[in-house]
């Protein structure tokens, strides 16, 4: 059986790849995808430790995170759409009328 450490390091890696993506990409859609990666890192943990602890709480909850990710994307796409209509771009660093 694969040691539990591996899953944790794997999920940390996925999480940090997601973080890396949203720190270095300006495109709003890629930003969304990066967030999806981070949520999926959580799912890796949930499923892996479901087996470790011998209950399906984690597996069940991972379904909920997926559903929530879908809901978040729906709202996110809506906001990105109005962003595009107003700024004619989906670059997240374009919208800087408010600062300081």
């Amino acid at each position: 059986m694969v040691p539990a450490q591996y899953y944790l390091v794997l999920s940390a890696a996925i999480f940090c790849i997601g973080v890396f993506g949203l720190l270095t990409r300006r495109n709003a859609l890629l930003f969304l995808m990066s967030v999806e990666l981070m949520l999926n890192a959580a799912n890796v943990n949930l499923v892996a430790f479901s087996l470790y602890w011998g209950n399906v709480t984690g597996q069940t909850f991972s379904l909920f995170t997926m559903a929530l990710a879908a809901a978040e994307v729906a709202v996110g796409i809506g906001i990105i759409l109005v962003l595009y209509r107003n700024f004619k771009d989906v670059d997240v660093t374009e919208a800087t009328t408010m600062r300081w």
Partner: protein
Amino acid sequence: MAAPLQAEAPTWTALAPALALVVTGLVLIVVDSIDPDDGSPALLAGVGTAGALASLGLAGWLLAGGTGQPDTGGAIALYGDALVVDGMTLFFQALFASVTALVVVASYDYLYDREYQAEFYSLVLFAATGMALMAAANSLSVAFVSLELASLPSYALVSYLKRDTGSVEAGLKYFLVGALSSAVFAFGISLVYAATGSLLLADVYETLAGGANGLTGVAGVGIVMVAGGFAFKTASVPFHFWAPEAYEGAPAPVSAFLSSASKAAGFALAFRVFVTGFPLGAGIDWVLLFQVLAVVTMTLGNFAAATQEEVKRMLAYSSIGHAGYALIGLAAFTTADGGNVLGASMAHLMVYGFMNTGAFLFVALAERWGIGRTFEDYAGLADRAPLACVAMTVFMFSLAGLPPFGGFFSKYFLFAGAVEAGFWWLAAVGAVNSALSLFYYSRVVKALWLEDATAEFELGPTPTALYAAVVFAAVATVLLLPGFGAVIETAQAAATAVLP
């Protein structure tokens, strides 16, 4: 005395305040599908207000009847311990319902002649539902889902003015930081699950208190990340970056809603999760964590607020500062002290709910009238709208914590509680920050009353509902002066009952 009605009803009725909100939200969608062109905005606002007031009435009734409180058999756990209804739940639900009612009433005038009003009201009510459930969550799964239920409508509400670049930009930033934060929150939950094998707060507490079997580090990272999720919701440093822009760009009633109710919801959940879910001394000293967050948050918020030129943005930063004050509830928490500091923090959030909502609604009034956003633009407004300016003065002085207003008592109890718990330096930092805050709050008062108008105001007709909401919030802020005894007693009793 016969058993009160509350004790005889089936236990699920304890969720009535949240149910009232969600049903109202659904009714609004139905009304919209019958009349898609928003033909009668008064009907929509009326339904929304009625729902919020019904929720407030139910919460107050249950609270008064002792539902879920120690003298009637303690907290009511529902649906496999996923939800819990106790004094703290009802206290916060009453707070959310009050703010929702004020915001809905005020929005009637603010949304005058705009499209998509049914969507607006239903989103507000759904967000309020999410908050009400955050106050009742007893499991990390419900915590996460209800937090999202409160957040998703908020993102859309901030971007409500779809053709206004400020509103859209605010929505974008709020959404992006929010998505990042909820991912961090979810990852934190997964780590807590990894360390304990459960999502129920009571189980988590038990496992962590019994030593985490070599998984202390995993639990520690999880707890810090969960704290990050709450820090986002409460606009605490370093998860606060969305707040200045979101509050500034959003329609002012939405700013009021987010900065009062949404913030309080974050605290309600944080209080519950940390006090009943994470034992002190298991893996991480979260009291110290919140001390760091509290000091940094109040200092950053107040210092940045002091140098703003726009009233709304100043209020946004001041709202960050107040998150820092409320964090004292967790930062000065000790088991020996009982629920005193926690209760003081809850009472502060209650007072804050009224005074801060009122202040943002005054800004809404100014936006409705089309006068500018800076301090100078507000100059001399007292000549034209004396009553509203009296109300605004009350809010400002109360926010600053001057003696004759509700804000003084709540801050006083908060700081006194911190001193009593042995954290006098927290109180000292808070007092210094309050002193600084007086400077920028009084700038508003000075502009309103003492300075001459830079240009002629053309205010147009008085927006009655908005005006009424502002005045009502002011009356409530003043009434919390004599009524503060009852509020603090309820809050501290509720907080004491939460302790594991």
